[in-house]
């Protein structure tokens, strides 16, 4: 059973040694500080464990990945939170519910994927004709479609193909075309007019500008000039001004 396998994953980390299940529980009860925990070491320990067992149990591996991803997300939220209570205050039950929701989603779609696999296998041997229409009919198609394609689609495709994988694109940061200072000024001018959503702040902006704007927002938060609320993942981020005296430290990322 998967539970046994994951529970048996023995960890020997700087801030914790014991089985994975225990670590999970302690994290959920806030008895081990997630911020102190090097999740990369947990992953390495898991990989060692797999190597020792000499076989890859996909069920367990998937479960592990889902759990570690959930821990990572909780951790990044804690790191961004900075200030003590508001965001840090995730009840153990709530955290457990989140992890549970993740695991259920993962299970559902794994089952749905298996179902799709069966459907595809059931269609084995069914082939479709892929012959082009006879030339005289093809001419009719051609005639109807002159000028119907947008050349910009080709330029955009080249743009996509020119993009380097993320690791190499660090160069973008070295040669920023958008400065944090500039985005700070932009956000402050919006703040002077009241509250606004992140969408409004980056309307029509390219991806780089969106990223830099987010940095600028974090900076404003750190300085106590702005606060934000996001009700749900991928939901709208509402930003409002905040009158506070002492600047709050943000943990180094």
């Amino acid at each position, binding site marked *: 059973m998967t*539970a046994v396998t994951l529970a048996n994953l023995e960890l020997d980390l700087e801030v914790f040694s014991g089985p994975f299940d225990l670590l999970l529980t302690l994290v959920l*009860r806030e008895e081990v500080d997630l911020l102190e925990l090097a999740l990369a070491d947990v992953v390495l320990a898991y990989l060692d464990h797999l190597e020792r067992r000499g076989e890859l149990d996909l069920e367990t591996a998937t479960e592990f990945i889902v759990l570690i991803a959930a821990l990572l997300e909780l951790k990044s939220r804690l790191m961004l939170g900075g200030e003590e209570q508001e965001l840090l205050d995730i009840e153990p*039950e709530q955290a*457990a519910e989140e992890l549970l929701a993740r695991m259920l989603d993962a299970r559902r779609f794994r089952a749905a994927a298996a179902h799709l696999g069966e459907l*595809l296998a059931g*269609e084995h*041997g069914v082939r479709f004709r892929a012959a082009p229409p006879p030339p005289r009919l093809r001419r009719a198609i051609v005639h109807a479609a002159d000028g119907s394609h947008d050349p910009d689609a080709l330029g955009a495709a080249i743009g996509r193909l020119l993009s380097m994988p993320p690791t190499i694109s660090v160069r973008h940061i070295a040669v920023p075309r958008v400065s944090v200072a500039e985005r700070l000024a932009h956000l402050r001018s919006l703040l002077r007019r009241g509250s606004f959503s992140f969408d409004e702040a980056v309307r029509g902006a390219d991806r780089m500008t969106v990223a830099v704007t987010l940095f600028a927002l974090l900076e404003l938060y750190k300085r106590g000039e702005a606060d934000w609320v996001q009700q749900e993942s991928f939901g709208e981020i509402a930003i409002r001004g905040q009158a506070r005296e002492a600047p709050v430290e943000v943990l180094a990322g």
Partner: protein
Amino acid sequence: MSAPEPELARTVEALLFLSSDPLSPAELADAAEAGEGAVLAALAVLAEQYAPGRRGITLRELGGGWTLASDPASEDAARRLFSRPRAAALSPAQAETLAIVAYLQPISRPEITRIRGVSADSASATLLDRSLIEEAGHSRFGAVLYRTTTQFLKLFGLRDLDELPDIARWDPTPEEQAELRERLLRAGEARAGGGP
């Protein structure tokens, strides 16, 4: 449904033969300059003639329309002739990504990644390349959205997306859920109390 017109059945058959995409009764009616009722009657006649096991070709309702397909019984001969397998099976990552898109479309790649817990980049690139999914605009954060294609419905033998079973069908029972929840909260305690 109107009485079958042999002439129209022949025209519909020719159109189905020529088109590589499934054709809806409305599209057939437009092209044949006939009423949709008459087209449905013609399709019923053809469905009878192409009933499974009668010919080397079958008539199927797939991907929102009607299409002709080979009878699976001829697969061995087809593989020898074309030396190309029909369609490669999906890897587990591809199948999972496809299932997520099929059930939650339109959905962005970051959301797929969030559900899977691992990157979906390479799986979604392969699915795009095999025309099983396609782009469907952008989310408000600029992420590309994906949806499934007619090709997906065709290859998986589905008339439309409604034919996919309710996702709740695979939910664990309330007891199993309670047990999982319990495990998440109590694993440590059980461990501490229960020996090695």
